[in-house]
């Protein structure tokens, strides 16, 4: 085993110093994109779950179709479709917008399914108690059902948020200069894979706190006694 060679190849200080700014710029894009995807995906997911709770058949059918298609398609395919196919129907968008839109829709589909599962798991007596005291459907949903449903859905939801946010790496396919793309170009320019190691570190830097945040949320939201 040649430690010297290993370090030169994968942890080359000189290469790291030269290409760190590229990785840092990629981090900014990844962070920004991940945050936007999380926010818009969750908002859309909650909205869809609420619409589904109206139990209006045609709407339910549409939502189920959307959720099933978005969960069945590889996110990469959705991104490529938005970026490369939509210009043909006069809908050009930047690599950032295409990735954001695709991943938001994917996250929304999963979030809707988790939340809907949560809503169904809340016992019927809860909405009966709320409605019997005069709360409207909307008040019952927001004050009684959703707080409980989101607790039930939370573990699945945090995992999915992390998984979809990591999929920002797929943006590299449409030349979005996020971490992975920048790391790949840097390593081919340098002829050395050290930037890829930097990229891995950058992902850890971003997502370890997110994972910890998820754990903290789950612990905090556990039923109090």
């Amino acid at each position, binding site marked *: 085993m040649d430690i010297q060679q290993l370090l030169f190849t994968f942890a080359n200080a000189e290469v790291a110093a030269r290409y760190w700014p590229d990785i840092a710029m990629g981090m900014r894009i990844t962070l920004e994109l991940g945050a936007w995807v999380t926010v818009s995906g969750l908002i859309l997911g909650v909205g869809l779950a609420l619409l589904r709770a109206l139990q209006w058949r045609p709407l339910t059918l549409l939502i189920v179709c959307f959720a099933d298609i978005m969960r069945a398609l590889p996110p990469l395919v959705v991104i490529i479709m938005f970026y490369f196919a939509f210009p043909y129907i006069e809908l050009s968008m930047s690599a950032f917008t295409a990735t954001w839109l695709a991943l938001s829709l994917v996250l929304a589909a999963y979030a809707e399914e988790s939340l809907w599962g949560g809503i169904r798991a809340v*016992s019927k*007596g*809860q909405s*009966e*108690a*709320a*409605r*019997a*005291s*005069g*709360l*409207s459907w909307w*008040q019952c949903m927001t*004050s*009684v059902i959703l*707080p*409980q449903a989101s*607790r039930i859905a939370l573990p699945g939801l945090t995992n999915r948020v992390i998984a979809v946010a990591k999929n920002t790496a797929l943006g590299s396919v449409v030349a979005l200069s996020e971490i992975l793309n920048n790391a790949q170009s840097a390593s081919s320019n340098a002829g050395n894979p050290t930037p890829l190691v930097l990229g891995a570190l950058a992902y850890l830097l971003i997502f370890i706190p997110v994972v910890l945040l998820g754990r903290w949320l789950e612990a905090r939201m556990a*039923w*109090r*006694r």
Partner: protein
Amino acid sequence: MNTAAYPILELVGLRKHYGDQEVLKGIDLRVRPGELVCVIGPSGSGKSSMLRCCNRLEECSGGQIVVDGTDLAAPGVNLNQVRQKIGMVFQQFNLYPHLNVLGNVTLALRKVQGYSRAKAQEKALAALARVGLADKADAWPAALSGGQQQRVGIARAIALEPRIVLFDEPTSALDPELVGSVLQVMQELRESGMTMLVVTHEMAFARAVADRVVFMDGGVIVEQGPPDAIFGAPRELRTQAFLQRVCS
């Protein structure tokens, strides 16, 4: 207004069917102010369905449900408005597990009746005091015994100052030793003048506390009258058979 003659709740020809199975076959019932009416009868007799039609948790198929002068079954009725006047206490308590006791009691006070947080808490604490649980305001429902949970359920209902409270088998989910505390709270409520319609299996309670007992079987009211008459000298064969089964 002559409140003595004016029923708070009046059911007129109430019908309900699931598919082609008729569970309520024309119920006529009046509950006057301050009255405690107990509804007894075998399971499947339609007594819970009738109670749940009174605030339209279940939809009826025909007839009138008049609460405080408003027909709930009429089209265009503001259901949320009328429901404030009808408290409900459930067999399974149905406390909100994500809110503490105070949060459970204040929710509708704030959201439906529009009280400020401070005013709602004041009213909630008064309601909790009436059920003997003012000291549990900060507790979580899961930390309470079944009897305490049901008393919170009662406080949640009476805090809205309803005209009538519906009780759907309020002690059926309780351990036997906890039943007494809930029945006692109900008796105190009755003495304070609350109008109550109670579906129950507690025959001793019905006999001791009710102003009137209604016996239902097969989706109809078979017989009703003062507790002594129903329990002491039932006229109908079905009532006699039922009482013999449950009281022996």
